[in-house]
């Protein structure tokens, strides 16, 4: 469709503006031919046409990615001639992720299209991480649904970065949505294991989220609402090379619900980000801020199973966590520097007494630079510095402490009540080379670190090798030493907790078929010492040995903006051993032998999208109760736990379906989306629960079918 507005005289000049139908994005690369003469558009998709008044003119517009248009009109025009070209739906670009020459031998990439079109992710790119190969499948809305366990690593073993700055946690309430405003993300990469020296202080995976960095040509944005959140974002160019962006999202059930008996303060969360960047000839300098917050108040007991009088005696936990960062980022051709002030506050108050407040202030700083030394040799160096001070206020919660293990672990650990200030400085530096030799590339590197707590040095040699054995085949080998210091919170319980020390190796192969279908196979193994893990009750403990191994097979196919599919199957084990002569290997929290799934999305029509996601996995482990004793002193039952992680939830299956229809108008578009999740019983089991005397075990059940609706306007 075209649109142009005719009216009074324009003195022989016609202002032409070419935009994309649906979001009004400028199309500077569209080709324009006026009366047989090519005319160039500027960066904003505009051109001024010199045309004689009163003479019919013909303009032909073509674009590789859009439907062409031919316009005939008679100047003069009293307003600019604005033309909207519809995007082509097919054929799309074939996207191949394999064969990327980096030291990260396994990499899973997610971009906005995949995030928005995959069912069950609620438009959240980070949620998609949990549908990637090697990542444990978690039950939605279970206490562990936000845990990211990758290739046998425990949930706390991975690091999450937003543009180079590590954020304190990934999901609101460890459940619903990520703390990154999804609309501002350009892409997200998951490095499951065997990554290069660039990343460290982690024995698990690395999740690196990257914000959109391209300067917008015009004001763009979106506003969205679904059953849980409302939010919006905006990006706009400013003069003199500057541009700004901002995004905000908030849950709104608390406004509607006003709390319940079980949740006197209904759970609410928010997140935001904003940035201003100047794009220069050689460098881009920006300031940015981001943050999120979670709040709720819950009764420390299940009111449904308590007598009304008992309910009155149950204390309430008021919990809140929020973090904010403010930083500066500088990027240049082959490097970046980023530093930020990060404030992180955890506050948990038990109404009957008991308090935990942890306020952490840090200055995470990161420098990455690379260059070329010789025609066959590139280099990369960098470092991370994290000075930090943590202020802790702790007041014993007595017998209610173990009930708040997820919100305020030190209360559950019964750490001696104290007010403490814990200063800490962590530093890591790395160097890495990339040497080309025929079809092979070698990535040797080393990472060194120091932690002021315990003055514990770490030295981590790494190596990756990629060999292109055929045009469509590449072999990958990588690994090395991966060390991780305990979290500051864990050091509260035991300042002498050791550094976890792991040796990890990955062997993989990438094979493309006809340059379209990708087949990726990986095998991995990781042997660890001094693994810090959290048993079902009590303080963190150290397992002398850890062992994780497994294999993954992934098939991918993608036509950008048209169709994508990936399917995977993974086998893996994650085991721990206490080191005693008579001890046995036992499952860690991350032990999930089988997992697999399929994700497919198809834009049947330009405006209509259908998508499906299916995930299946062995049920997560849990530690069952094997008995109880009656404590007559206060008329309670005390559980006796069996072997750690000796029981499993039922196997998990989940199907997500999505239908979305986009109404495209000239300057904006409106998308209506309906997601439906289906969880066939007994996979609805979320977590175990017990009778009052722990004599009977049952499971709390989640819904079988749950519809979710969403609405998003983009301009």
């Amino acid at each position, binding site marked *: 469709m075209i649109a142009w507005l005719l009216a009074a005289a324009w003195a022989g000049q016609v202002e032409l503006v070419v935009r994309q139908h649906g979001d009004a994005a400028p199309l500077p690369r569209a080709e324009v031919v006026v009366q047989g003469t090519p005319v160039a558009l500027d960066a904003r998709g505009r051109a001024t046409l010199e045309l004689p008044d009163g003479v019919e003119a013909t303009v032909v517009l073509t674009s590789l990615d859009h439907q062409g248009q031919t316009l005939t009109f008679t100047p003069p025009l009293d307003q600019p001639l604005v033309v909207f070209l519809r995007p082509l739906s097919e054929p799309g670009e074939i996207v191949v992720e394999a064969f990327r020459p980096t030291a990260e031998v396994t990499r899973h990439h997610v971009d906005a299209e995949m995030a928005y079109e995959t069912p069950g992710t609620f438009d959240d790119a980070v949620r998609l991480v949990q549908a990637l190969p090697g990542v444990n499948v978690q039950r939605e809305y279970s206490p562990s649904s936000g845990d990211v366990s990758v290739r046998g690593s425990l949930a706390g073993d991975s690091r999450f970065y937003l543009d180079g700055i590590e954020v304190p946690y990934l999901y609101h309430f460890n459940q619903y949505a990520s703390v990154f405003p999804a609309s501002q993300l350009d892409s997200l990469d998951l490095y499951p294991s065997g990554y290069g020296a660039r990343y460290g202080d982690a024995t698990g995976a690395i999740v690196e989220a990257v914000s959109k960095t391209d300067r917008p040509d015009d004001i763009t944005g979106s506003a969205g609402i679904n059953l849980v959140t409302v939010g919006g974002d905006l990006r706009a160019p400013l003069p003199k090379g500057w541009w700004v962006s901002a995004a905000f999202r908030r849950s709104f059930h608390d406004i509607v619900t006003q709390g319940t008996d079980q949740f006197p303060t209904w759970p609410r969360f928010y997140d935001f980000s904003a940035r201003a960047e100047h794009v220069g000839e050689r460098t881009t300098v920006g300031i940015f801020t981001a943050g999120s917050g979670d709040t709720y108040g819950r009764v420390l007991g299940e009111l449904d199973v308590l007598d009304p009088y008992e309910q009155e005696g149950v204390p309430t936990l008021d919990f809140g966590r929020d973090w904010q960062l403010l930083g500066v980022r500088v990027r240049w051709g082959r490097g970046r520097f980023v530093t930020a002030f990060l404030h992180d506050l955890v506050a948990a108050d038990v109404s009957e007494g008991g308090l935990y407040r942890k306020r952490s202030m840090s200055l995470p700083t990161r420098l990455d630079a690379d260059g070329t030394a010789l025609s066959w040799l590139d280099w990369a160096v960098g470092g991370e510095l994290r000075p930090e001070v943590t202020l802790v206020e702790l007041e014993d919660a007595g017998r209610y402490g173990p009930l708040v293990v997820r919100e305020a672990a030190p209360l559950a650990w019964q750490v001696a009540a104290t007010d403490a200030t814990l200063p800490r400085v962590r530093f890591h530096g790395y160097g890495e080379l990339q040497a080309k030799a025929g079809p092979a590339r070698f990535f040797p590197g080393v990472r060194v670190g120091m932690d002021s707590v315990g003055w514990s040095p770490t030295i981590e040699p790494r190596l990756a090798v990629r060999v292109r054995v055929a045009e469509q085949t590449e072999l990958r080998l990588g690994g090395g030493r991966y060390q991780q210091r305990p979290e500051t919170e864990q050091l509260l319980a035991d300042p002498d907790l050791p550094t976890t020390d792991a040796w990890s190796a990955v062997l993989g192969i990438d094979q493309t078929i006809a340059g379209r279908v990708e087949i990726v196979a990986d095998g991995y193994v990781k042997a660890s010492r001094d693994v810090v893990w959290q048993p079902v009750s009590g303080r963190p403990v150290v397992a002398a040995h850890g062992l994780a191994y497994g294999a993954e097979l992934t098939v991918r196919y993608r036509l950008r903006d048209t169709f994508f599919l990936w399917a995977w199957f993974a086998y893996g084990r994650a085991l721990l051993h206490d080191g005693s002569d008579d001890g046995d290997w036992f499952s860690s929290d991350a032990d999930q032998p089988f997992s697999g799934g399929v994700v497919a999305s198809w834009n049947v029509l330009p405006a209509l999208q259908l998508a499906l996601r299916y995930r299946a996995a062995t049920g997560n482990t849990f530690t069952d109760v094997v008995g109880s004793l009656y404590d*007559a002193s206060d008329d309670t039952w005390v559980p006796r736990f069996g072997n750690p992680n000796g029981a499993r939830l039922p196997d998990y299956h989940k199907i997500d379906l999505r239908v979305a229809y986009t109404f495209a108008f000239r300057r904006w578009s409106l998308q209506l989306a309906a997601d439906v999740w289906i969880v066939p019983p007994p996979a609805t089991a979320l977590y175990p629960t017990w009778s009052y005397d722990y004599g009977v075990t049952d499971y709390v059940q989640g819904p079988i079918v749950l519809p979710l609706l969403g609405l998003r306007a983009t301009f």
Partner: protein
Amino acid sequence: MSGLLLLLVFACRGPVGEPRQALVGDRVVAVTLADGEPARPRASLLVDGRTWSDEPVDLAWAWVADEDALWSLDPAASDATGPVPTLPDPPEGAGRIGLVATFPSGHEARALLAVTGSPAAPQVRRVTHARVPGQPLEDAEDDDLALEVRAARPTEPAEVVAPSSWTRLQARVQGAPDGTRIRWMATAGTFLELDATTADWASADLVLDDLETESSEPLPPGPVTFVALANDRQGHGAVHAFDLFVGEEPAGARIGGRWLPADASPMAPTWAYARLEADDEAPLGLRLVDVQQVSDPAATAPEVPCEGVSGPFDPLWLLQGACPREALDGVRVLARISP
């Protein structure tokens, strides 16, 4: 989490197993400590849902330092055995009494009691009961059964507990420090507690959803056994067991709150000699025969064939396992019969 957040409200968590107020199965209902030294602990036992048993429950007692020590306690290596033990002085560092109870069914239960040395335990002197007229049962809705609404309702004395009615139970507790509360238990019916020592009991099996009646099944006429356990959360407890009769009460007598069927109801209060006879339908497993009221309060109590007990008949002998029912079948006892 405990399961907790956001859309977890969609999750469904119902009651698991029997409610703790239900007197069913084999259970150590309470462990209490008699006044004075050396330590003389007593266990109140439920055997197959009854407050008596023909076969004794094997009880092994020992001083323990903590829960782990109790878990690893070998009954054969205990400090004392039986229902009426006297423990030696505790060893250094062992401030708790551990109990391993092995029931006739083979079920094993372990219990723990902290010995604090603080003032004496509370005593449940008696439990009164009264009708709660006007309190909806089969069609309760909205806030009919809310705590403050129930607390405002008046009660009236009642000789008979009607099926599908509410009865208010109130325990008179002596020597109870702040924080003492009653844990109510019964062989049938439904409780809604009112305050620390008071509860409303429905003579019906109720299924409530957010205090609104979903279904109601009236109890059949017959006796219901109650146990009121007072606990001050400082290591002290006291147990009071009693019976109420749903419907018209047949001939019988009350001894220490327990109801025993008899050929005829004696005048009360009084002292009486009577012979105990096994009766599986009776709440205490025994009935009274050949009841002979005596006017002399100093009447001599016959000996009973149970170790560690003597004097007038006390139903606690069965609850605490001191006397298996078999041992009392046919035994003549002196008893104080109360109204």
